[in-house]
């Protein structure tokens, strides 16, 4: 360092070295952090907008009204294969049309919870349960019954039908053997992810609800389930 020219270069060279070193060690990571933070801010801002919209939508919903609608829809399509409820419906409906229920059989495979699981896996939301029934009565009663099945609640449909009669006169007794399907909708397995936007009820779905309200609810009055005796009668039962 005896050469004054070399002494002169110490300051600028030191400055450059300091700048390079500080840039590599400090400034560059900071700039990278800024980039990451900017990306995070953009993402968070978007998320916040969505969440704010969701909160606004949820606050705008009428919880009482929703509970009322869901309770009613649970009667229209139960959450599980509610066999007693379906049997009561069958009994009430047959009674309403002055018909006699002479036979009733349920598909045990469809009734099992195993088939229910398969239905969920296949994403078939509506799962049917078939009842094979036989009814007897006047033809006019059976015709009314068949007509009203399509517009009665809980939701049901006639899958196949066999009619036996001596003639198509109203006075004749007609025997109808039919497969009646009742439907159930399982509760969703995954509920309410916070980040997911709220499911909006479409106009078509609202129309579906409105059209269902025009249907006739069969189980307005509570009817007792039919009692079947099995095994030997209890001798100690008071007569």
């Amino acid at each position: 360092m005896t050469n004054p020219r070399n002494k002169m270069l110490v300051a600028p060279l030191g400055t450059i070295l300091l700048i390079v070193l500080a840039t590599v060690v400090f400034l560059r990571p900071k700039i990278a952090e800024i980039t990451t933070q900017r990306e995070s801010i953009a993402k968070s801002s978007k998320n916040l907008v969505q969440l704010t919209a969701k909160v606004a939508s949820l606050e705008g919903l009428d919880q009482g009204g929703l509970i009322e609608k869901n309770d009613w829809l649970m009667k229209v399509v139960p959450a599980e294969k509610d066999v007693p409820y379906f049997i009561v419906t069958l009994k009430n409906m047959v009674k309403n049309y002055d018909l006699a229920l002479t036979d009733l059989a349920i598909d045990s495979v469809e009734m099992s919870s195993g088939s229910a699981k398969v239905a969920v896996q296949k994403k078939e939301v509506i799962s049917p349960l078939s009842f094979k029934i036989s009814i007897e009565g006047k033809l006019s009663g059976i015709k009314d019954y068949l007509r009203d099945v399509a517009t009665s609640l809980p939701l049901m449909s006639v899958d196949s039908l066999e009619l036996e009669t001596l003639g198509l006169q109203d006075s004749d007794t007609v025997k109808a053997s039919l497969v009646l399907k009742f439907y159930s909708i399982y509760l969703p397995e995954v509920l309410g992810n916070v980040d997911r936007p709220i499911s909006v009820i479409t106009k078509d779905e609202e129309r579906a609800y409105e059209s269902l309200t025009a249907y006739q609810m069969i189980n307005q009055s509570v009817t007792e389930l039919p009692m079947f005796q099995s095994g030997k009668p209890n001798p100690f039962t008071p007569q």
Partner: protein
Amino acid sequence: MRREINLLGEERERKLKLTRQFRKLQIASLIVLGAYCLVVMVVVGYNYSLGVQLKNLNNSISARKMRITELKKVELQQLLLKQRLSALEDYLNKPAYPYTQVIENLEEDAQGTIVLDRFVFDGKGSVTFTGKAPDAVRLSDFLGGLLGENKSETVFSEIKLAGLSRNINGNYQFSTEIVTSDKSKK
């Protein structure tokens, strides 16, 4: 008058020039260093402000999420309603099979002269029925009626006479299979 002779003038000038250059370089280095520090400060400041902004955003997000959790029951009800209505909408869009209409059409075509005694609806749009006709003319009138003769429209798209036999007393026993126009069914 005294006359001075500066023997070191040239050397001194050179040294002075070098010192001036050295100072200039030092000042320039300091200015550059100062500017760099300023840039660093701006970067650090901006980074800090972004950090604060992100923290505020995350706080707001947490608050919203908490509110959504509070409103979970409402969301659950809405989700249930949506699931049920979308499934029911699909179901309701499928028309129900017109059992009563088919029976009434057959009843109308029978006109009280044909006795229909057994119907089998297979659930896929096909109906098989058996009956008795007093004579061949009435039977052909009945089948013509099913085919849509003297009618603007008919619900049956295909009619097949599956079996026909004549009794000793002249009555006809027949079996017919018909397919309704609208095969769509729930």
